[in-house]
């Protein structure tokens, strides 16, 4: 029983990071029809930014709550800034072009950014000081010892989902985004410059990836240049399984993929969970290409 509880919380934590990256991708694809490969690199860059803030803290004692919050803030700002610049400098010129061009540009940017990080800090993992309460202190639930970090990741993902839904439902920008997902041309025909929404959504996606990067680094106690690639791969699975452009679908898919991986890896064979994630994506593409949340083109 305790193992099941442990797997549930670990799966939810992993799923939370997938959601942090996948939710941004879902918003971006939903509105802009851009499949961005750069957000994995944003996650990596922000993981390093978080590490850069935390690195002088003692490995044993870990950073203070204030430093931790500052690292998270830096991650959000760096991720948002990178995404903002990408949209304004690179993507804006490519909206009239083929999707392949956008994909290649974002992939190229992603590779370049990771290469830059590799050049500066090298390929070796760096230890990330974390507060003892984050990874070493546990809470017992039905005999399972759950790390507090799991609660933090799950809590952040839930808060993010609530915040994004509130943004989409109760703000004018959110209204424009939801309408734009359905019919971008009609939004323009109502006198709305939809490019502002593109910039906003791409930036939000980057900021959320940045938050995910710092949290992922804290969760793993380490950062390296492949961290973003790994998460990006599963975020794309989440995007496809959830339904391209569906926020709620992304949340459900992130949970499903996280739990599937943890349970399969623990109870069947390590590594099988990752394989099954790809099989799940393939099955969804074949049997239900609109994904779990994409029955109608709607974000929430």
């Amino acid at each position: 029983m305790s193992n099941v509880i442990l797997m549930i919380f670990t799966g939810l934590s992993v799923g939370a990071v997938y959601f942090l990256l996948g939710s941004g991708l879902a918003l971006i694809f939903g509105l802009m029809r851009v499949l961005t490969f750069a957000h994995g690199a944003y996650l990596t860059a922000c993981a390093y930014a978080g590490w850069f803030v935390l690195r002088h803290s003692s490995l044993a004692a870990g950073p203070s709550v204030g430093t931790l919050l500052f690292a998270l803030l830096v991650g959000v700002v760096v991720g948002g800034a990178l995404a903002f610049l990408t949209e304004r400098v690179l993507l804006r010129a490519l909206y009239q072009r083929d999707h392949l061009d956008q994909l290649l540009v974002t992939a190229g940017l992603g590779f370049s950014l990771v290469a830059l990080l590799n050049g500066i800090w090298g390929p070796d993992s760096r230890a990330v000081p974390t507060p003892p309460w984050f990874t070493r202190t546990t809470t017992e639930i039905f005999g399972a010892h759950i790390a507090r970090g799991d609660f933090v990741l799950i809590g952040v993902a839930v808060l993010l989902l609530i915040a994004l839904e509130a943004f989409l439902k109760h703000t004018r920008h959110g209204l424009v985004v939801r309408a734009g997902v359905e019919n971008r041309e009609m939004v323009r025909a109502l006198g709305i410059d939809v490019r502002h929404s593109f910039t906003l959504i791409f930036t939000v996606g980057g900021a959320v990836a940045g938050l995910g990067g710092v949290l992922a680094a804290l969760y793993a106690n380490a950062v390296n240049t492949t961290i973003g690639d790994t998460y990006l791969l599963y975020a794309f699975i989440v995007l496809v399984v959830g339904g391209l452009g569906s926020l709620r679908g992304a949340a459900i898919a992130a949970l499903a993929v996280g739990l599937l991986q943890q349970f399969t890896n623990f109870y069947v064979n390590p590594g099988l969970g990752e394989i099954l994630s790809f099989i799940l994506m393939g099955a969804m593409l074949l049997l239900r290409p609109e994904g779990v949340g994409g029955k109608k083109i709607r974000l929430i």
Partner: protein
Amino acid sequence: MNPDHDPLLEVTDLHAYLGDSHILQGVRLTVPRHRVTVLLGRNGVGKTTTMRAVLGLVRRTGRVVFAGDEIGQEETHDIVRRGIGYVPEDRDVFHGLTVGENLRIAERRGGRPRYDLVYELFPELKNRTKHLAGTLSGGQQQMLSLARGLLNDNDLLLIDEPTKGLAPVVVREVVDVLERTAGQTTVLMVEQNLAVARRLADHIAVMVDGAIVLNGPATRLADDDETVRAYLSVESAISGAGS
């Protein structure tokens, strides 16, 4: 001043393209102020593309002058903000948004949305503000689309086939609304229902193969069955809805 000599919209040598297809081939069109101009023609001659080209929704070249200003190079949102409302052919209401949200998104910054007017014209919508637009009937969606176009105090309304696919009773309702609003603003409308066109039009423009072949007072249409036969190939009394 004679409104014919004071056009609100003047289109000259307008060319538009959809992919590799050259759809509009030098359209020349004048829309007089405070009049209803109905754009007529067979299916596929470029009527909808003309409206979309005026709004910059398709790749186009040529001269488009609105209220004295050249807008042919402007972005769609800038053109619309000058005071142009658009009611598209397929209604294009946002199905995942409520009726209220569909209207709210149409509110123009700095403008004064005319909710009193649209709810007076379409009282049914007032009772359904919280309903998803996707759950409305075709007729109700058309009303919502029209309401969206009328919400702002536009100088020009572009209305594309407002009666298409509607039941006769709904057509009558829509035509009544169009007749009431026609006197207050300039309208350029595409309409296949000739009875409706005859009832509403002050001016007509007839399109053939991507070009305007006739642009003048609507009396030409009423008096000249030959015109109808030559250019439109439609029955002159499609339905009694407009009568």
